[in-house]
């Protein structure tokens, strides 16, 4: 475990001194702030147009679009957190040296994964300010928000695992980022195509669509089926990464 935590701390230290962390936080907070601002404007418009005596649901009209947009933006942004994790070690030549240290390939991948997840979680934590601000005027349903954050964490975990896998596979970190971006976007958008397809195809596509798996969480429904889907994607990709490293040793 000492190897795991040493590598975890090193990753965070390197992320903290590179442009990646700052670009990630700046873009993420800027756009999520902007989405929140737009959400408030829309919510006000809804409230004004609503018949007298009707309460416009904050979760449905403010937080669902906010977090759904935020997650879409994370699909674009998370690959920059994972792209360098292994690919950059290879490019710098530090990777073979890491392999000579007393740590298993699983600890190597696990620590890198956890470091990216920590940064992602940090960013997510900062967005808690939006419901806190909204709660000053009341109407925030905290259990629903808990479900929303759980869904985003699970979806993010799956995307980070895809990113780590491609970082292990690719020689250059930009290639890793591009591949992660493409695959994650594909699984995000695939559900939109499903609407236009026959039922049996659409059911399959909805089943693998990140957006459709996330949506119940945004509406406050914690479905173990959806949670297991994201965990399954994350574990499968981590195991594939582990397999790649072991195969390299035996090649």
């Amino acid at each position, binding site marked *: 475990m*000492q*190897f795991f*935590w*040493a*590598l975890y*701390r*090193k990753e965070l*230290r*390197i992320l903290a*001194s*590179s442009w990646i962390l700052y670009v990630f936080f700046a873009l993420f907070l800027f756009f999520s702030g902007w989405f929140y601002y737009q959400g408030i404007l829309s919510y006000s418009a809804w409230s004004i147009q609503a018949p007298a005596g009707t309460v416009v649901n904050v979760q449905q009209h403010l937080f669902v679009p906010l977090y759904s947009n935020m997650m879409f933006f994370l699909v674009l942004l998370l690959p920059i957190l994972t792209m360098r994790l292994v690919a950059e070690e290879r490019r*710098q*030549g*530090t990777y*073979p*040296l*890491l*392999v*000579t*240290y*007393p*740590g*298993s390939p699983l600890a190597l991948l696990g620590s890198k994964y956890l470091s990216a997840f920590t940064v992602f979680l940090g960013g997510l934590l900062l967005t808690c300010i939006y419901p806190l601000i909204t709660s000053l005027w009341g109407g925030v349903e905290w259990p629903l928000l808990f479900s929303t954050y759980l869904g985003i964490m699970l979806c993010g975990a799956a995307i980070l695992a895809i990113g780590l896998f491609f970082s292990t596979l690719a020689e250059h970190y930009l290639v890793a980022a591009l591949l992660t971006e493409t695959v994650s976007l594909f699984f995000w958008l695939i559900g939109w195509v499903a609407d236009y397809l026959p039922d049996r195809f659409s059911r399959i596509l909805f089943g693998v669509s990140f957006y459709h798996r996330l949506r119940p969480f945004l509406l406050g429904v914690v479905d173990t089926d959806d949670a297991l889907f994201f965990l399954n994607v994350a574990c499968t990709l981590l195991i594939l990464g582990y397999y790649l490293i072991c195969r390299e*040793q*035996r*090649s």
Partner: protein
Amino acid sequence: MVVERVCKRFGSSEVLKNVSFRVEKGEVVTLLGPNGAGKSTLMRILTGILLPTAGAVWIEGHRMDREPLLAKRHLGYLPEQTPFYPELTVREYLHFVAAAKGVSPARQKEKVQEVLRRCDIEEFGNRRMGILSKGTLRRVGIAQAIVNDPSVLVLDEPTSGLDPSQASSFRDLILELKKQTAIVLSTHLMIDASELSDRVLFMHKGRILLEDTVEGLKKRFAERDVYRVKIRIKGDMETEASFREVLGEVEGILEVDASPSSDPHTWQVTVFTQPGWNPTVGLLPTLTSRNWDLLELHQKTMDLEEVFGEITRGAQPKGGQ
């Protein structure tokens, strides 16, 4: 470290064939051989970066492919190019390596300070690695290799890219480290092999062709002795042919090369003789009879580079394996 019948295949090509040797504490063993001999692959197997197709590597009784974590705890490795993290300072980097190699948290600070001092890089401790010179980086490289007090050190081209004075002090450092560790090094530089090695393993086409001490190898390949002789002639001028004729008749001399120096009366002669030939018996009486003065006489020893050349040309050593 024990290397036992290691074989490595990449597809259909067999890069290492039954390589076996052992290295004890206090010993430096050098891998020599032409490019493509399998040295790099062997180094990668010794350090656990690659696994052998057959055979095994043992470090302190732990088999690398079965107990990699235990084996690697006793290992230090310096790759040919010193890899580094430009964002980290030297001290941060060494702390990370110490922790990753399992040095207990209580001892990490002390160990990092110790290797900074031993490798003479204390003044660079707080500098970022991205701005260090190649020589300093090399020292950081060796510092990370020894921060866990390894019992086996694997050094790949340890002095490559260093200027002569840096290389010399680096060799001194390796000789100092040798007291507590078993060292395996791979090099193309014969000076490193000559000055550092207790034993040399000559690799060729994936096999260990020869294993001997540096002196032993030189002796094996010394098929003839070489003497450099400086002679001053008196009287008539001599030609190269006359030296060949006169000295060629001396018993034991096989070949003679002669060339005049800037002074036309002084000649530089190279004499190739049978091994064990005695110049005082064979040469001196002949010079005296011709009234030539002997100004200098010294035996030229074969250096490792020449031995390397002989082996790669396919020469068979005397009493070779």
